């Protein structure tokens, strides 16, 4: 399906990324809390779950999560600047910067989990 012209604008796509990453993080949050809550039973219960993180597929998913968090975080900083600082005409530059920062962040995490 082809996007209608107004949805192909980079800043419109940035807004969609903000919403989709936020939605994904909100759905991840309860799962994250539940896993940590396993330690309330016993550290072993948490450990048996954490051993999953050695699985390459889970590692890729983790890096994806960090990327989503980075996109939402840096994209969110741009939106806070739009809403609380005087208008800047360089929005596309800032959106590109947010993307670059999010990718850099997930690469740092990638090095950490594979190192």
């Amino acid at each position, binding site marked *: 399906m082809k996007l209608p012209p107004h949805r192909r604008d980079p800043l419109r796509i940035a807004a969609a990324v903000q919403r989709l990453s936020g939605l994904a993080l909100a759905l991840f949050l309860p799962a994250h809390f539940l896993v940590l809550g396993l330690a309330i039973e016993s550290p072993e219960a948490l*450990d048996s779950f*954490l051993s999953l993180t050695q699985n390459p597929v889970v590692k890729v998913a983790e890096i994806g999560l960090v990327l989503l968090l980075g996109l939402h975080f840096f994209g*969110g900083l741009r939106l806070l600047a739009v*809403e609380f600082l005087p208008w800047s005409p360089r929005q596309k530059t800032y959106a590109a910067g947010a993307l670059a920062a999010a990718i850099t962040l997930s690469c740092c995490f990638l090095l950490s989990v594979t190192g």
Partner: protein
Amino acid sequence: MVLGRGAEMLDLRLYLLQRLSAMVMAPLVLGHIGMMIYAAQGGLTASEILARTQGNQWWALFYGVFVLAAAIHATIGLRVVLHEYLKPPPRLLNSVALALFVCLVALGARAIMAVVL
């Protein structure tokens, strides 16, 4: 005049609360990611996590604020998404949002207790 009083100003209050929670979370997210990058080296183990957090009131405060701000931020965001795509009646929408908020805070508090106590 101070805006924000009365039920009809709910959207304004939620808008402010969402931005405020975002500003509170900004440094916490950086701390959390830094921690993850540090902790994920050489694999995650429960003993490693618990050794860092158990009995540490600073981590309890850090994550207590983080859980509360994240629960506020996520609930307001989900409320907007539900409103725009499903268009439920306002009372149902607000009840669902409140339920989501309570669940997130309860699960978050349980997670903090699990790793700090």
